[in-house]
Every structure is written in structure tokens, then in C-alpha cells.
């Protein structure tokens, strides 16, 4: 079975699926994963669980790979003279909104624009400064009566920008956070087709990461994995992101290190990457990793966790930019780490012997 990674990623980046309402994207991912897993199911919160069984004797250890499929966007809070007032789903800098093309998911999908009222119409002290979200509006181009009949409070609004390749390797689009990581897991599953692995692999597309880490808390409770790996985007060096928290675009996935990561897992991923010459970068995370791993690590009795980062420019804007090579490298690294996990390696994920 084959799957073309870039077309699949572009397909995902064209779909809505905001936090709490992931159904549109979930079906597409389920269709893509179905040929590569033994079982596929949906959690009570809508997370997608795909199980690819390992070869070791039961009871087999389990590795959970989590990438959140929910995207940030907007939600209608009111209708005034045919214009829509809105709030955010997930964290959005309101400065990127004026002039953005969006889709309002009312009774049907309606193309629209986020607009900034002229200065003379807003509070005098706001004139000339970026407007808070509460003062921006969405214009559908339709007349008030039709707006009222098609749209209601609570309707979702997603970004309309179509994914675009800037070159063979560099792709921009909205929702790369975190559909790029769903592509990573997909690439891993593809490679695992040709690999014998001992451990069970749970591929999980989680929900609501951008709002509550809901999928991150609840999926591991059901699955109880031996190890959990969160794959999420991280900051790539670029305008506004140039310090120790940002990494080279196209220079390889990042391996997290810090309290949210079990050092034995970090070391294992690092040594496999070094052995196989997979370009990678080390990401120091002094506190919260900002990913599903923050939730997964403290589920039930605790789960040894790891974070893999895909460098991305302009996070939480509709023009998020990644290197497809980084996605492929991350998928390859995951597959090779999984390949090297023998059933008895459970015992190697411990604290006493981890050295610097």
C-alpha cells in the first residue's frame, strides 16, 4: 500500500476540524490509516485510535504516538447588521486577522473575510493600533436576512488559505500545527509496513489539544501505553523567533529534553538518530513542553514520555511553513526507534542508570 505524503498533507491542510469539532479531518485520517493498522476506533471525545499490532508474545508493551488533529480558528458569537462577531478557538494573535480569507461553517460553507472597521468607527483610543478581536468583524458579502438564516451563534470559522508549495520541499498552509505531525505518524506507519516490530503501536490523532489537551489526557487513560510520544510542531528560526527556542527549518526534527521527557527515551531517540545519520536538533524544554506530552505524562500512574518537534515558521498563523524533509525524517526516526524496541526493552526505560 502506498500513500503520497505531500498530497495527503495538502488534503489535510484544506480541511477544517477545529478543536472540539474534529469530525471533518478525522474521517480523512481514518481513511489514510486504515490500510496500515489492524484496528481503528474513535474515543468518546472524538480522538482517532489506530492499533498496529506487534509481533512479540502477549502481553506486549505499547508505544503511543500522538499528534493532535484539531486546528485553531474562530467561532461566531453574535450577528450585528449582517456582520459576524467572533471569538477564537485556540490562541490567535488578532493582528493576523484583518483581511484574512475564512470559511464560515453555517448551514453551508460560506466564504468570507475578516475585516477591520475604519478608524473613525472604533473607540478613539484604538485608532491606529491593532484592534482586539472583539472589535473585528466577519463579512460574508451576504445581506443581513440571508446571514441570519444561514448562520447562528456557535458556528465555526476556519481559515481559507490553500496549502502551497514554495519549492519542492517547503510548504505553507493553515493548520500545519498540527497536521504536519499527523503526516509524520502516517509516514511512520507507511515505513512500519516493511518492518517487524515487537511492540504494539498506537497511532492516535488527538482532539482538543489547542483548548484543553483533552485528547492527551483521555486517550492514554484508555490505552495505557508503556511509552507515549507526542509529535508536535516547534518554532523554526525566522522573523520574531531567533533565540534558543527556535530551530533551523529543514535541519531535522527536534528531540525534546526537560522535565516533561523521560531521559531514557530522549537518549534512545538520540542514539538511533545518530546511528542512522538522521539530522536532528535537541530542544531544551525547561518546563511545560506545550504539547500533548504534558497531559500524557501524568495520566493514571504516569507514563514515560517523549516529544518530537517539527520546526515550523509563523506558528498559529494561516501561513505556517514547514520543510517536508523534516516530516519525512521524523517519520523515519519513529519507525526505526520502534523497529529497535525489543519486548524486554521495557526494563531499559528507568531512572537509576540515566547518565548525562
Amino acid at each position: 500500500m502506498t500513500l503520497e505524503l505531500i498530497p495527503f498533507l495538502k488534503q489535510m491542510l484544506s480541511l477544517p476540524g477545529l478543536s472540539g469539532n474534529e469530525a471533518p479531518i478525522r474521517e480523512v485520517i481514518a481513511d489514510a490509516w486504515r490500510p496500515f493498522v489492524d484496528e481503528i476506533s474513535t474515543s468518546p471525545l472524538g480522538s482517532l485510535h489506530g492499533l498496529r499490532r506487534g509481533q512479540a508474545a502477549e502481553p506486549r508493551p505499547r508505544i503511543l504516538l500522538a499528534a493532535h488533529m484539531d486546528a485553531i480558528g474562530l467561532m461566531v458569537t453574535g450577528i450585528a447588521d449582517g456582520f459576524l462577531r467572533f471569538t477564537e478557538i485556540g490562541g490567535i494573535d488578532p493582528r493576523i486577522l484583518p483581511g484574512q480569507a475564512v470559511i464560515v461553517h453555517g448551514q453551508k460553507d460560506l466564504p468570507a473575510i475578516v475585516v477591520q472597521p475604519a478608524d473613525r468607527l472604533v473607540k478613539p483610543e484604538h485608532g491606529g493600533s491593532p484592534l482586539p478581536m472583539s472589535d473585528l468583524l466577519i463579512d460574508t458579502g451576504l445581506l443581513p436576512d440571508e446571514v441570519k438564516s444561514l448562520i447562528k451563534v456557535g458556528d465555526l470559522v476556519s481559515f481559507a488559505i490553500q496549502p502551497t508549495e514554495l519549492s519542492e520541499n517547503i510548504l505553507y498552509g493553515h493548520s500545519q500545527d498540527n497536521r504536519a505531525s499527523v503526516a509524520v505518524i502516517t509516514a511512520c506507519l507507511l515505513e512500519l509496513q516493511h518492518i517487524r516490530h515487537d511492540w504494539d503501536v498506537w497511532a492516535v490523532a488527538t482532539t482538543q489539544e489547542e483548548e484543553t489537551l483533552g485528547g492527551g489526557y483521555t486517550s492514554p487513560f484508555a490505552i495505557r501505553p508503556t511509552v507515549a510520544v507526542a509529535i508536535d510542531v516547534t518554532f523554526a528560526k525566522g522573523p520574531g523567533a531567533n533565540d534558543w527556542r527556535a530551530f533551523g527549518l529543514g535541519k531535522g526534527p527536534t528531540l525534546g529534553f526537560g522535565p516533561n521527557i523521560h531521559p531514557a527515551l530522549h537518549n534512545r531517540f538520540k542514539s538511533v538518530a545518530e546511528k542512522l545519520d538522521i539530522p536532528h536538533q535537541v530542544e531544551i524544554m525547561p518546563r511545560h513542553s506545550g504539547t500533548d506530552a504534558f497531559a500524557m505524562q501524568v495520566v493514571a500512574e504516569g507514563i514515560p514520555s517523549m516529544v518530537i518537534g517539527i520546526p515550523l515558521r509563523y506558528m498559529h498563523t494561516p501561513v505556517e511553513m514547514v520543510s517536508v524533509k523534516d516530516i519525512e525524517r521524523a517519520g523515519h526516526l519513529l519507525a526505526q526507534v520502534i523497529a529497535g524496541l525489543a519486548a524486554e526493552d521495557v526494563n531499559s526505560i528507568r531512572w537509576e542508570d540515566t547518565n548525562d
Partner: protein
Amino acid sequence: MTESTPLSLPEIGVEQIALLERLSNAVAVSGDESEVRAIVLDAVKPLADECSVDALGNVLVTKRAQVENPLRVMLAAHMDEIGFMLVQDDDNGLYQFQVVGGIDTRQLPGKPVWVGRKHIPGVIGAKPIHLQEAGESGRTIPLDALRIDVGPGNGGKVKPGDRATFATSFQQIGPSLIGKALDDRLGVATLIELLKHAPGNVELLLAFTVQEEVGLRGARVAGYAFNPDLAIAVDSTPAMDMPMWDGSENNRYNTRLDAGPAIYIADSSTLADPRLVRHLAGTGDRFGIPYQFRQPGGGGTDAGAIHTRRAGIPSVSVSVPGRYAHTAVLVTRFNDWKNTLQLLHAAIQTMTPALLSELR
């Protein structure tokens, strides 16, 4: 009116101080508690019925009771301390760093530090006053302008990812115990002493937790794993019992030094179970052990993560008061520590299942 004590209460002697000193001087910042974990494992393994290290690095110890159907009592003390993490190598022995846990950045400039388990010495320097502009010394130096400096040529000894702490060596001066990380090495040492003197009437479940300072992370999973009948977090809490700037009554002291262990009624993370508060205060009254109530509000302890686990776990916190919390040096009193240990021991030894039979 105190009862004559049929209980023999544990004392703090030279051995206990020596243990506290080793614990205080260890470098164990949230996420990398191994130096303290090793000391703890060494101390508890000969005494425990069961001992394990879990997925996050908590040390979990069980000491079984000598009676049938005992109350299962969990105690938690955190092994981690606030500190720093090196994040970028700037060459010449200079490293950018981040703060782990809550530290007021005004406490940083001009301090010596230890980096990593090998305690590589370094400093957090500051701009010379001669080179400053007018008014500059009235502004806090931002974190991104500070560096940990291990000296030119020594860059190979440390690397980004290493943790660091203030380089404070423990001292006992008069009535005071002074050192870094006494929040919560005092709690760790207390749990070890309670284990040594384990009364047989309850099953003791001791959790030496990790990552308390970055969100009560270890306690959350330890609470779930143990699922005890009740839990007590043993920590250290600020004593801000110094004179007000204008001589007015200090009504926001939180706790006071020399007034004994501080029993919590409420902090930001937990509304203490009143049954446990009453039992602790009653124990103090009964055996003549001094105690105080911590002023309600603010702060948080491992109890915050434990009490909302599973179907709910009645919990309370007891802390040793300390001045200058979350800085390079904590000042605590020998007597406050001793009384904390004795209050907890007596409270545990006098616990029965009837304690929780009344509704909350």
C-alpha cells in the same frame, strides 16, 4: 492541658542533621532529581516493605501495618528544588539559562551557582555599577540579559540541558538551620524519619515526589497509584514575619518562625479536609506540641494534585516555616522541624479508621 506522653516521639539528632545537610547540598532541580533520589533510596531501602521508582522518577515506599484492615496513610514530600536550566551555549563559558519553578529574578544577580550533579562551579554575574546609566540600578535585570558563567575554557564541563542551583552550603547556626532547597528537603528528611519510627497502626505510603515546583506533577501520579485513604503533604512554607515598612501590624505574615509546624486550612490548590485539620490540631493540643495555622490563601503543595485523584482523597498539608522562600538561602528553625516531625508522628500514631467516619 497536655496528656502525659505514652508515645515516644522521634528526636532530631546529629544523624538527622547530617542527612538534612546532604539533602540540602544536593543539586536536584525539577525534572532531574537523581542526586536526591539516590540519597533517599539508600535511606529507605533497608526499612521499606516495598520500594519502587515510577515513570516520572517518584520514589514510592510502602511500610505495612501490624494490624488488620489498617488505614492507608500517604505522605508526600518533594525531592525537587527550584533552580535553573542551561539553554544555550554562548561560548567562552557563558550560558543563557531559564528559571525552573518560581524564582523572583531580583534574587539572581551576583550569585554563585553549581551546575549539574558534579556541582561544577559558576556564577551569575551582573553589569559593573561603573558602566551603568543613571537610574539603571532601579530596574530589574531581565533574565535574558543574565548568564551563567563557568569560566572561559570550561565550556566542555557543562552543556545546554544541565540544571543548576544556587551554590549555598548548609549550616546550623544557633537555633537555625540554613541552606538552599530546605523547601522541601526538610519534608524529605521528615518522611525518612517517620519511616524509621513507623507506628504499626497504619499502612504508611510514602511518596518522595518529583516536579512539585513545576506543577505538582509527581504527586499527581503518585496519588493515583497509591489511592490512599488520606494524604498529608509535608512541605515548607514562607514565614514573612518581619517588620512592616511603616511599623504597622504585619497581618500578612503567612506563618511565623518558632511557632511550630504550620497546618494548612486553605491554599490555592487545596481546601484542607477539616477532619484532618481537627485531628492535627487536636494532636498538638493533646501532646503539648506547638503548632500554628498557616494564613489561608496563595501557594500550593502536593496535596493539590493528590486530593482530586480518582474518587477523591481527604488531604491536608503541614509545613515547616522558612524565611526567604525560593531564594538562595532559606532560614528555618531546628525546633520547628523537630515539632513538625513529632506532630506528624503523634498524629499518625493516633489515627484510626473512625477519623473519616464523619462526613466531610
